[in-house]
Structure formats: structure tokens, C-alpha cells
């Protein structure tokens, strides 16, 4: 069932060839579903369905933006030619999906659902690298991207026209290495996870500032770029990387600890809740559980109705759930190489994805797995982040 395409490694081809090779849409059926059934189901009422979207793939040939309709289900992949990372949905045109390249990134793409058309591809500015995430302004007119100034390592928030992706300018991120960013419920404030790491320019991954790393959680005005608040963790070797925002403005954040910069093996909290004007509250867990996480949380999502902040640990093969208000650990679920996590459109479940192409549903009330809903797509290798998207109900035939 694996699909193969003639996509060459990006670093071996020029820009023109890259443009030719990206954007191939491939479809794969789940185990046991015929092409005939798929054709019927995909031609009618497809827009009634929820889509699950994620960067996927484990080599240059297969990297892409993958998506599935879990109710049919089928999987499709828009090849990108680069390893993707964060995905974002336009607030008013829900069919428009953005995928940013994993850091250090040069590209972003926009795909339209449900057909998977490559609507646009955009590149970084000179002396800038994308850092893996983007979000839209409240009116959907601006796309904000986390970026780094490659000349001095300063964090930047790029501003682009969300229709044309023309570069409009940038703001400071007031820190080093901005990673995930989200719009706050007021529609104006951006909250930014400044990871605080500088990396080797040759590979873009090796950390070069372990001694001086400087992570922060920053709030800025998305209209003016003005700094509103900046917060730091007591543990200077913890890098704030991912976040999600609840409707009341609570921000769930997750960290990655640079253990090689520490001289001890004590467990360090990797998850926290923050509210503007207050201190960051670390979320506690038993020592053995924390050690299992191996210093890394890969993704976070907030369930607004149940007030649960959910996190994933691909190294620890665990998804973990804390209450946003009591800060109590509510449970955990063991799932191999789990990283993507989202809340289902009907709010009834958390959905988890892993690098084996598997999806699991966790009941948001009981935090028990709904085993009958397991899905597996052998053609997919889901990467860090998963997003649930529901398109307006209408026929597409």
C-alpha cells in the first residue's frame, strides 16, 4: 500500500526541479477498503467530514502534508519535498491549511481541502530561517511565522499577506529561537514560545549555546509588535517549545530539557500552565513518569470544555493529561512513538497519532482509549503535530 513518487532529495536539486516535484497528491486506502468504495465515498458528502492533518513522512521521497477523513477513512499526501512540522488552519476559510517546514526551514506551503490542491508555496526571506510554526491573525489577513535572523540568532515573527504570502515585515520575538506561536482569545495578542537555543549553521540542529541558552514565554501585540509580557522558567536548561491556548487565555506550554548541559539526573518538569500577569505553574508528576518522558514533550493541545491540557512524549511513548485549573495529573496513555495530538471536532475525544501511521482516540471524559476507533494508515508516518479540521457541510459532487 506504500506509494512511491519520483521526488529527489531537496538538497540535490535546484529550485525549478523542486517546484516540479512537489505537490504530487497520492492517495492510500486503509487496510481492507477497496478503490471502488473509496471512489464512491470520496465523491459525495465529503465535506461533511472531519479531516485530520499532519506533516508526515520519514524521507525526502515521502515528506508531505498528509490528511485523512477518519469516517471513511482514506489517507492522502501532498508531497512537499521537505520535512514539515506545524500546521495551521485559516480562521475564516477553513479549507486553507498551512504547513511550515521543520526548523531550520526554508519553505511553507498552503493546501486546500478536500482535494489537496497546492494553493501556494512561499520561501523565507534572506538571512531568515523558518522555525516550524505559523498562525493567522484573527481576521485571517496576516500569517505570522516564527523565524530566526541567521546573522545574529535573534528571534523574529514574520508577517505575510495571508492571500499572496508577500512579506509585509517582521516583529522581534523578544528572545532566541521562537518556535510555536498562537493568537490569544483577544484576537490581538500573540503568545510565543522562544526556545532559546542557537544552532550550528552547518546542520541547523546542533545546539551551540548550551551555557547561555535563554528560553522565554513572550506575549506581544500582533498589531504593533510591542512587548506585553515576558516570562522565564526557573530551570534555565528547559527550552519552551510548544504551546496551546484555552478560550479563557490559559496557555499550556511544553518543554525540552537540554540534559547535556546539566550535571545531575534529577527529573525536571516538562509541562506547565501560564496565565497572563501570573507566574508559570509547573505541572507535577511522579518521578518515574517524568523520567520516562526523556526530557522531551513533542506536542500539546487544550480541551476547552473539559479543561484538560494534553501532552505527548514520543521518546517516552506516552500521552499525558493534566487539569488546567487544579494542575492535577489526570492520566496517561501508552502509545508507541506518539507525538501528534488534537481534540476531535465533536470535542468528545483526544486524537493521537504516531510515526507508524496509527491513530488512537481517547475519550475526553474518561481518558480511556476507545479501542474500536483505532485507525492505521501504513502509507503514513505522522510527524510532530496533528490538527483536526471540519469543513462546512455541503456536497462537493
Amino acid at each position: 500500500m506504500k506509494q512511491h513518487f519520483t521526488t529527489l532529495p531537496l538538497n540535490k536539486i535546484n529550485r525549478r526541479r523542486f517546484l516540479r516535484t512537489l505537490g504530487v497528491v497520492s492517495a492510500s486506502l486503509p487496510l481492507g477498503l477497496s478503490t471502488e468504495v473509496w471512489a464512491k465515498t470520496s465523491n459525495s458528502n465529503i465535506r461533511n467530514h472531519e479531516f485530520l492533518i499532519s506533516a508526515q513522512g520519514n524521507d525526502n521521497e515521502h515528506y508531505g502534508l498528509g490528511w485523512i477523513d477518519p469516517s471513511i477513512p482514506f489517507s492522502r499526501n501532498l508531497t512537499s519535498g521537505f520535512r514539515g512540522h506545524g500546521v495551521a488552519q485559516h480562521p475564516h476559510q477553513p479549507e486553507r491549511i498551512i504547513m511550515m517546514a521543520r526548523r531550520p526551514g526554508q519553505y511553507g506551503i498552503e493546501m486546500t481541502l478536500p482535494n489537496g490542491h497546492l494553493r501556494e508555496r512561499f520561501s523565507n526571506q534572506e538571512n531568515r530561517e523558518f522555525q516550524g510554526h505559523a498562525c493567522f491573525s484573527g481576521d485571517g489577513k496576516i500569517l505570522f511565522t516564527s523565524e530566526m535572523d541567521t546573522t545574529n540568532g535573534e528571534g523574529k515573527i514574520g508577517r505575510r499577506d495571508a492571500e499572496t504570502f508577500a512579506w509585509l515585515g517582521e516583529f522581534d520575538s523578544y528572545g532566541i529561537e521562537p518556535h510555536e506561536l498562537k493568537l490569544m482569545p483577544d484576537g490581538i495578542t500573540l503568545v510565543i514560545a522562544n526556545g532559546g537555543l542557537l544552532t550550528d549553521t552547518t546542520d541547523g540542529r546542533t545546539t551551540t549555546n548550551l551555557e547561555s541558552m535563554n528560553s522565554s514565554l513572550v506575549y506581544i501585540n500582533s498589531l504593533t509588535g510591542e512587548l506585553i509580557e515576558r516570562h522565564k522558567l526557573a530551570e534555565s536548561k528547559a527550552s519552551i517549545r510548544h504551546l496551546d491556548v484555552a478560550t479563557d487565555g490559559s496557555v499550556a506550554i511544553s518543554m525540552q530539557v537540554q540534559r547535556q548541559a546539566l550535571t545531575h539526573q534529577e527529573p525536571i518538569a516538562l509541562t506547565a500552565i501560564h496565565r497572563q500577569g501570573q507566574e508559570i505553574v509547573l505541572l507535577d508528576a511522579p518521578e518515574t513518569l517524568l523520567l520516562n518522558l526523556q526530557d522531551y514533550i513533542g506536542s500539546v493541545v487544550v480541551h476547552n470544555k473539559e479543561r484538560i491540557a494534553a501532552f505527548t512524549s514520543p521518546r517516552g511513548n506516552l500521552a499525558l493529561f493534566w487539569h488546567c485549573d487544579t494542575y492535577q495529573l489526570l492520566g496517561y496513555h501508552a502509545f508507541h512513538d506518539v507525538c501528534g495530538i488534537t481534540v476531535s471536532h465533536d470535542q468528545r475525544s483526544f486524537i493521537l497519532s504516531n510515526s507508524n501511521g496509527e491513530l488512537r482516540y481517547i475519550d475526553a471524559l474518561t481518558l480511556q482509549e476507545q479501542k474500536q476507533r483505532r485507525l492505521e494508515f501504513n502509507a503514513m508516518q505522522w510527524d510532530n503535530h496533528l490538527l483536526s479540521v471540519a469543513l462546512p457541510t455541503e456536497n462537493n459532487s
Partner: protein
Amino acid sequence: MKIPVLITRTVIASAATLLLASCGGERINDPVTVTEGSLSTAITQALDYSVLPAVNVFNTASNNLLSASEAFCSAPSASLLSNAQAQWKTTATAWFRLAPYRFGPLNDDPVLPEYIYIDSLRLRGTDYTATVRTDIETAISDSSTLDDAYFAAKNFQKVGLLALEITLFETVDTKSTTTSDIVTEFTNTERKCQVLTGLATQLSNRATRVSEQWNNDYDETGNSYRTTFIAGELSDGTEPLTLLITSVQEYLDYLQQRDVVNITAQKAGIAWPLVEASINEIEQLFSGTDTTTVSFRALMQTSGYQSEIAAVDDNIQAAYDAITAKDSVLFSVAAAALDGNFKREIPDGLEVELGINFTDGD
């Protein structure tokens, strides 16, 4: 059974007879194809000839340690102490053969995994000797009832092989390691015998529980963990071979990062033989036993990965050389190199995908 591999090569191999016995159906002169079936056979044989024996030997050794402890406490003597100490060494050696397989019943509870109650060092390389000494002193000096409930309630830092070693190999008062001093203390202090047998009972119970789940009923499913593993039906979705390979990776990473040979079994004085037992086990897992017909080595050989096999062999030999020289730095280097083999050469040679690389975070 779902096999986690993408076998893309069809290989004509000279080692045909090696695989024919297990793949079935082929004639003696047929070319040998590396199939999902042969890999499945290799996994099953690795389980049956390496992993399960390690589980069962550790269980037997732990039960024998309890018996030896009870025999010693019934009539303390130098001879019976020597027997109990020897049985502790046997048990610790059995543990170091089992330790690379830290999955399933040993590690299916993320909060209270069984393995930390056997080997507290393994959690994060912390030496809890001082904690154990204080706890034994307290147990002997206070008036608590030293029954099963008392020992079952203890934190992992205070039980397991380390606690038994401290109890068996030194005195509480002066930390003397002289046999006569130890025997005298046991003779004069009945509560120390209660500590010894209480700790040994707990270890034996845990080893039996692990063995029971591996062999008979795992997590009240009615199926053994062996059956679940071979069927590829692990609850967290991990593929069997991925779990086996990453478990050995993690163990080698542990040996490399923690100063195990300078912390473990210091009173018993067998740290080097213990890590040698681990390397023996890992070598056996890779190459198979006399009973094995399809080993991971043979599959790699058949697929033409001779240089990768040579790299593994070189690093295993380097580990043995470091053990012979009792050179902890060289041993750490060899363990790291072997860890790299289990991350790259062996998965490549078996054409296994271990998943997306999240090792450098993001």
C-alpha cells in the same frame, strides 16, 4: 502478525540451508529469500532461546536466593552465609542477562515499573547505598513488625538486589565485610534475618510475577506476554522487533552513560562479571544459540550486510577487551559504539524502520 519491516531486497544467498529449515516449502536448491516469515522466525527464536530463558533463570535464581537466605537464617554459619552470598551473585548475574530486555512485565507501568524494585540503579544511575543502609538500621532498631506488608510497602530505593547485597555482604554497625562479623551479627540480631528474608521474599515475588506474565497470563488477559509479543499485539502499538532493538539500545545507552561498573555490586565485588553477562546476552541475542536456526546475524549475512556484522563483532570484542582490562572508560566507549550498531547497522541490516527520529527534539 504485522511485521514492522520493509523488506525490499530479494537476496540470493549462499547460506540457504540455514533458512530453509524454518521458512518451509523451499527445496534444498531454491534460492533463499529473506522474508517477513524468516524475520518472524528470528524474532520468535530470539524470544524463546534468549529472552524467555533470561526471564526464567532470573526467577529461579531469585527463588533460590530466598531459599538460601532462609536456610542461613535457620542456623547462621559461615558456610551457609557463603551459600547465600553465592546465590546473590548468581541472581545478580541472571539479572544482568535479563536487564537488556526492559519491556513487557518488567516495564509496563510508567509510574511504578517492576524493574526499579529489582535494580534501583537502573532508573537514573543513582547509587542508593546510603539510603539502604539507613533503612536497614531503622528496621533492625525499631519495633515495626517486619512482615510481608512492611517490605511490600517500601519504596524502590530500599529494596531489590542492592538492599540484599548490603544485608548479606556487610554488617550494619561497622560495615565490616568479614564473614565472621556478618555471621555474628545475624546470630545476635534476629531482626536482621527478618530483613534478609523479607527482602528476598519481595525479590522472589517480583521475579515470579514477571515470569508468570511472560509465560502464562499477562495483565489478566489470559494470554502470556510471549504470545502477545509474537502476535504483534502489544497494547501500546509497538512492533515486536522495534521493542526488542530499542530495549537493547536503551540498555547500552545506560551502560554508557552511568558509571555502572563503579557503582553496582561493589560489596560483592562482581561488577565486571555482571556487565560481561550483559554483553554475553546481547551477543547471544544477535548471533543466536546452538538451538537457533534463524538469527539476526544470519539474516543480515544473507542480505549481504557483512561489513555491518563486522562492526557489531568489533564492538562486542572491544567490550570484552575493556572488561578484561577492567577499564571503565574503554567499556563506556565500546558500549556507546555497540549502542550505535543497534541504532543503525542492525536495523539497516534487518531493513527495519524504527520510526521517525525525534531524538533531537523540536
